[in-house]
């Protein structure tokens, strides 16, 4: 668990270092101001299965990434915030009012769901116009045209959505969510299916919207997406809030943890003894014809390894991290 230096520190959690109070994310709202989005000790369970477990945070303007492996509870959390699930305990507030059973709050919220299904028989323009009309926007056609231009879909706007690629559907969904100019935008895995150019365009768009004072929360199971876009991050693992705060601090936690690598070389014994002399390495042993190396400094080790191998005239054939899956990173964060 960590917090950005310029953000209120997360109070010590009562349970195994998990965030327990209400950390403020994004640009901290001024004292006394109502955060755009507040999740207060929210849990959600289905029978005996706990999908979201006592999570609290508050969001102000800025881009926040909701990071976690598949099945961690990200979508459940987003659905709770979007008023599409009732909290089993706790409460979700949007612009100061409850998110559950209060349709009026959708004037403030734009939602881009993860599921791909959109009304396939409508054109992109008709879909955006429908959203604008249902939002009660003054000039639905103009609002739809603006939203379509914003997401760079003008050329395909008059084709039926059924003919769209996955990335175009994502942009059509985003256009539908932007027609009423919401202050809070919730996006569930928005980059799924987008090509690199569309991804960059979407990131730039979300950044500019955040700069204009909007609160944007997007979920992703891909660390690099969050790293490139989010000012701050919420890490969810097994339904718990594992970490919250400035992305760089959490990234440091992720990379500074003990790492293990296996290395196969022309002379494993000589390489192991040479590596043990390096400050970045605190353990090296020969296991199954490979050197198993433990290091506390990921970057220093990856820089030192080729240098040490060359100095000792050892050829490196293979190097592989043994625990670098996102799953293990999240699990490590939770244990902290």
């Amino acid at each position: 668990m960590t917090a950005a230096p310029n953000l209120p520190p997360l109070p010590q959690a009562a349970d195994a270092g998990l965030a327990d109070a209400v950390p403020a994310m994004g640009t901290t709202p001024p004292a006394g101001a109502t955060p755009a989005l507040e999740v207060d000790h929210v849990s959600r369970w289905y029978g005996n299965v706990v999908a979201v477990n006592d999570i609290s945070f508050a969001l102000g303007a800025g881009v926040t990434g909701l990071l976690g492996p598949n099945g961690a509870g990200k979508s459940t959390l987003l659905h709770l915030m979007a008023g599409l699930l009732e909290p089993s305990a706790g409460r979700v507030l949007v612009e100061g009012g409850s998110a559950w059973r209060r349709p009026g709050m959708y004037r403030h919220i734009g939602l881009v769901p993860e599921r791909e299904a959109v009304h396939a028989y409508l054109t992109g323009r008709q879909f955006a116009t429908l959203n604008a009309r249902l939002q009660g926007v003054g000039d639905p056609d103009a609002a739809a045209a603006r939203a379509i231009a914003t997401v760079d879909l003008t050329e395909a706007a008059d084709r039926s959505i059924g003919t769209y690629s996955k990335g175009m559907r994502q942009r059509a969904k985003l256009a539908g969510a932007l027609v009423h100019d919401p202050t809070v935008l919730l996006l569930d895995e928005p980059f799924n299916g987008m090509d690199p150019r569309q991804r960059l365009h979407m990131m730039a768009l979300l950044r500019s919207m955040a700069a204009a004072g909007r609160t944007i929360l997007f979920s992703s199971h891909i660390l690099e997406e969050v790293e490139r876009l989010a000012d701050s991050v919420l890490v969810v693992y097994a339904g718990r809030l594992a970490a919250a705060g400035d992305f760089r601090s959490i990234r440091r936690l992720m990379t500074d943890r003990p790492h293990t690598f296996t290395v196969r070389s022309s002379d494993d014994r000589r390489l192991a003894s040479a590596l043990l002399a390096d400050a970045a390495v605190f353990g090296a042993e020969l296991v199954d014809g490979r050197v198993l190396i433990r290091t506390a400094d990921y970057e220093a080790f990856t820089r030192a390894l080729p240098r040490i191998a060359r100095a000792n005239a050892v050829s490196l054939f293979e190097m592989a991290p043994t625990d670098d899956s996102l799953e293990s990173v999240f699990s490590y964060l939770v244990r902290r």
Partner: protein
Amino acid sequence: MTVIVPLADVTLRGMLGRRRTILLVLLAGLPVLVALLIRVSGGRPDADRVLDTLVVRFVMALVALIVGTGVLGSEIEDGTAVYLIVKPIARWRIALAKAIVAAGLTAALIVPSVLLTGLLLGGRSDSMTITVAFAVACLVGGSAYAVAFMTLSVFTSRAFLLGLAYVLIWEGVLAGLLEGTKFLSIRQATLGVASALGADISGDPLAANVSVAVLAIVIVGGFLVASWRLARFEIRGGD
């Protein structure tokens, strides 16, 4: 009421996909086809019997089942209902728009079918009375079926199967065997209305006032229950 129009519009577009439209038109056209065959083969024209056994007992219920479970249930299943739900609209308006389309589309398919079938089979002096009686009964009965099935689809993803079981097992078998359960049957109430308006219904149809009350309760109650449920709508799936 301004949101009712776009809601109804998108619902109707969704319902009139090519395959479903063909299926619905074929179903609704079946009684007309049977009537034609009777006329061509020189069979005895008996509008009461065809309209009772074929339209009310079979075609109307099936058309209403397909339409009723389609207007909202299929959107909930495929996830597109979310785009209607996350709007600053009272949920009863969504239920109302869906109910209007369900009832209207069912009536638009069944009433012309009844009229054409009745006209083709008309041979008796009171054939027009019989045809109009069935048309009015099917207008109300079809609406009741459609709203009931729409409401069922808000509760369960198995609305079509449950609806089919209701039509075939409950109404088809049990309501005929157990006299006291007649008032729990939309079909019996529809036949009761037709009988009150002059159609010749076999057996002992429900009284007119009871029939009208049953159908009114199903339509209004179904709409209220669907609104109540939609106000507590929870998305299915997700991690």
